[in-house]
């Protein structure tokens, strides 16, 4: 077998077998009971050489409608944003992407420092005291926040707003099942969490209240009231936030959030059909020792040089095993690096400018839809998404739009039967006025 990834030669093999004192490689597998030994070859496709495989897989990729070729108005938790070109240049440095978790700090200072900087940037955006090095994604981060809250408060119920991403709610229900925590959803009113209902539901059994900011419908929740109702019952206040929006919005930390989670995908991370993205997890100091996953801390060596190490590891599975605060081991480090590069490139002014463009362009789209006769049912403050009501089915809308070069919005009827004929439209800084006008015109033609 000659393969470019396999340097073994026949000569090597002979010498190595000699040192081991055997005559054939098969002897090394003699301890596998004959009954379970697999003797043939896998029934999978034969290997393809590099050039042929590239051709085949690029043809497969070309079957998909991508947001380079199409104008995408699809959001709902994953967005087509400007990704600074340098992001890929940095994360393609193989000293980063071919390294493991930085267990040996002396030869992993680059990764450790990059994570330390990531933790700092997440703290700056969220207004929280500390952040971990990343979670799988925003959904699992929110679910871990629910579990942390139940453990911390020793209560067995969490409230989650129905204005949280429905797939995030599903994941919260999944994670809490193992801990026998009940999940109660809080209805919405006018596209935001119904505060009267929240007041009714939150009680001294409530471990946490989970809301999203901006919420699933693009609306910006009134966190002041949610915080008051939550803390009045000594429950933890958990916010799932879009970090780009936080460039402009008052951060959850300022509203007294105990835990802020979210997904850093808007910063330099490709949509990639839903993953890998990058969850973040930020808390107040009082919850520091309950945080799941890896934390990087600053310290010094014997000569007083500053350096970084994985720290507070007594929370983690490799030390605490069944008593760990979470089972997470591998996280999303490379995407945290991508997000750091994007946050650095945009910087202090860029996140504000980009967030502003999102709001203003979405506002423009909202007015254009209204002008064209569509109803926009939720009239509260929005970030980069709005809900538009159409008179008729949405079943084939996106297929028709696709023919016009547009990836349409998210059909809310798919996740909420009360929202049949409502579509969630995302307008990021990537969309031009021309594209927005085209969307409104094409939708207008469909529902005239």
């Amino acid at each position: 077998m000659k393969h470019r990834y396999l340097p073994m030669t026949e000569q090597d093999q002979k010498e190595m077998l000699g040192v081991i004192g055997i005559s054939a490689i098969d002897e090394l597998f003699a301890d596998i009971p004959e009954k379970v030994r697999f003797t043939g070859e896998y029934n999978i496709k034969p290997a393809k050489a590099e050039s042929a495989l590239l051709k085949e897989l690029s043809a497969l990729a070309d079957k998909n409608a991508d947001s380079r070729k199409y104008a995408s108005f699809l959001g709902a938790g994953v967005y087509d944003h400007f990704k600074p070109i340098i992001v890929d240049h940095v994360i393609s440095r193989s000293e980063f992407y071919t390294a493991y978790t930085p267990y040996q700090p002396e030869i992993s200072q680059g990764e450790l420092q990059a994570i330390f900087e990531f933790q700092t940037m997440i703290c700056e955006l969220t207004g929280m005291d500390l952040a971990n090095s990343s979670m799988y994604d925003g959904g699992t981060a929110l679910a871990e926040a629910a579990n942390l809250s139940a453990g911390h408060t020793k209560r067995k119920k969490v409230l989650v707003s129905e204005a949280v991403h429905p797939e995030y709610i599903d994941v919260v229900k999944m994670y809490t099942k193992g801990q026998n925590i009940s999940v109660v959803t809080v209805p919405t009113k006018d596209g935001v969490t119904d505060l009267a209902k929240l007041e009714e539901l939150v009680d001294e059994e409530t471990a946490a209240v989970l809301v999203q900011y901006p919420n699933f419908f693009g609306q910006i929740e009134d966190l002041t009231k949610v915080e008051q109702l939550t803390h009045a019952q000594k429950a933890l206040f958990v916010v799932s936030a879009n970090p780009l929006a936080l460039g402009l919005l008052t951060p959850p930390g300022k509203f007294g959030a105990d835990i802020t989670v979210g997904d850093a995908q808007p910063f330099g991370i490709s949509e990639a059909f839903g993953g890998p993205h990058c969850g973040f997890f930020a808390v107040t100091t009082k919850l520091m020792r309950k945080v799941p996953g890896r934390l990087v801390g600053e310290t010094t060596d014997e000569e007083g040089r500053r350096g970084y190490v994985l720290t507070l590891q007594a929370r983690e599975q490799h030390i605490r095993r069944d008593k760990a605060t979470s089972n997470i081991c591998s996280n999303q480090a490379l995407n945290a690096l991508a997000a750091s590069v994007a946050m650095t490139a945009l910087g202090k002014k860029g996140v504000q400018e980009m967030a502003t463009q999102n709001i203003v362009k979405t506002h423009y789209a909202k007015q254009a839809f209204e002008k064209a006769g569509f109803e926009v049912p939720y009239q509260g403050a929005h970030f980069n998404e709005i809900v538009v009501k159409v008179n008729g089915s949405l079943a084939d809308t996106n297929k028709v739009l696709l023919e016009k070069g547009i990836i349409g919005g998210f059909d809310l009827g798919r996740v909420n039967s009360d929202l049949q004929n409502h579509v969630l439209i995302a307008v990021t800084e990537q969309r031009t006025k021309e594209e927005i006008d085209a969307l409104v015109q094409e939708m207008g033609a469909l529902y005239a």
Partner: protein
Amino acid sequence: MHKDNQPLIFEITKEGRVGYNLPELDVPAVDLATLLPQGMQRVEEAELPEVSELDIMRHYTALSNRNHGVDSGFYPLGSCTMKYNPKINESVARFPGFANIHPLQDESSVQGAMELMYELQESLVEITGMDEVTLQPAAGAHGEWTALMMIRAFHEANGDTHRTKVIVPDSAHGTNPASATVAGFETITVKSNEEGLVDLEDLRRVVGPDTAALMLTNPNTLGLFEENILELAEIIHGVGGKLYYDGANLNAVMSKARPGDMGFDCVHLNLHKTFTGPHGGGGPGSGPVGVKADLIPFLPSPVLVKEDDQYTFDYNRPQTIGRVKPFYGNFGINVRAYTYIRSMGPDGLKAVTEYAVLNANYMMRRLEEHFDLPYNRHCKHEFVLSGRRQKKLGVRTLDMAKRLLDFGYHPPTIYFPLNVEEGMMIEPTETESKETLDAFCDAMIQIAKEVEENPEIVQNAPHTTVINRLDETKAARKPVLRYIKA
């Protein structure tokens, strides 16, 4: 500040510099105050860096120079399968048709992506000998927990609600017991015998009607094949429990033995190990789960299926455990794994395992005189040495690991598994040449000699890295977890 400190990006920031240019706003500008009510707009700006594009590239290039990856040098980190990460994988994952597609697009517009996922699922079904595979879990630990939740649902569906215990060998990876806890089980530890294998007597003692599952890594974390696998399966199945396969070590048995044929009911794989997903400095990974027929109804929803040459996500799964992750898993890593499988083919994957195992045994034999070898038999893809001989001379395994840094190597995994004193777990992988293995063994032998002749040089290592051993106690006592402007 010490002159050798590597500046943080926040320390080279300068007001007024930018590292980006956005297109001019092409819709009418609006005063934000009219769009955001009072109190909603942040007053204090987030203190992100203000640097130029070249500043950023220099900063991260400097950081990368302070980092060791597989492309930098040998990385025999046991249990982590630090093999070469093929570059074609990186190119394919970045094709716009894979990188720039949205998970909620109309299915008709992402058939290529769904076809790739389906083909990968099918390949993994064949490789593991299971009946169906889900790609939803994001990493190994996530896959463990997913499978345990399915086992829990299976038992509950049978009215078996008293199965509260998951059995885990003392040599198991920490995520096994941690995942059991998150899934709501109590962990029971089963001992290893003097041969490093699960002690059958101890297993018989701990199993019972309350057993939900046994989690097994095979070969185990000592790199030894659990040759009593059929008896193990019989014991667990005999009490109605399920047998779980931690597939982190699949690189040792591909084309030689399949979990499905060994009696396992479910398995998770680490595509970021055996199937060359790059580790990325700690992630992202991908942890697909394969199951036998009786667990299929409980698979996470949605399930990707093929109907008349069309691919579709099936959400109509009445017995599903639910959703373990938004969307469909770490697709980008799955693309890399599929590209790898297609680069190797069936004969290639077989050679991978054979060479990985040959390399490990060769190194073990070259090193056995110089270190203690607690389990002296053929290993699989990795082996564990003990540094207890050196410890008697006052040098710990940690010291030897640090000394290896001076030779340009990433050290082996140390102090794991827990059942070996001063353990060093060495996994060469199949992508390393004999010359590399020899050079590493020479370095190890030299270090063993230094321990006898000049222990200080080992005890005080490393001597050549950008930084010496760091004060971890200080880091934990008063944690500094973020930069704060002086």
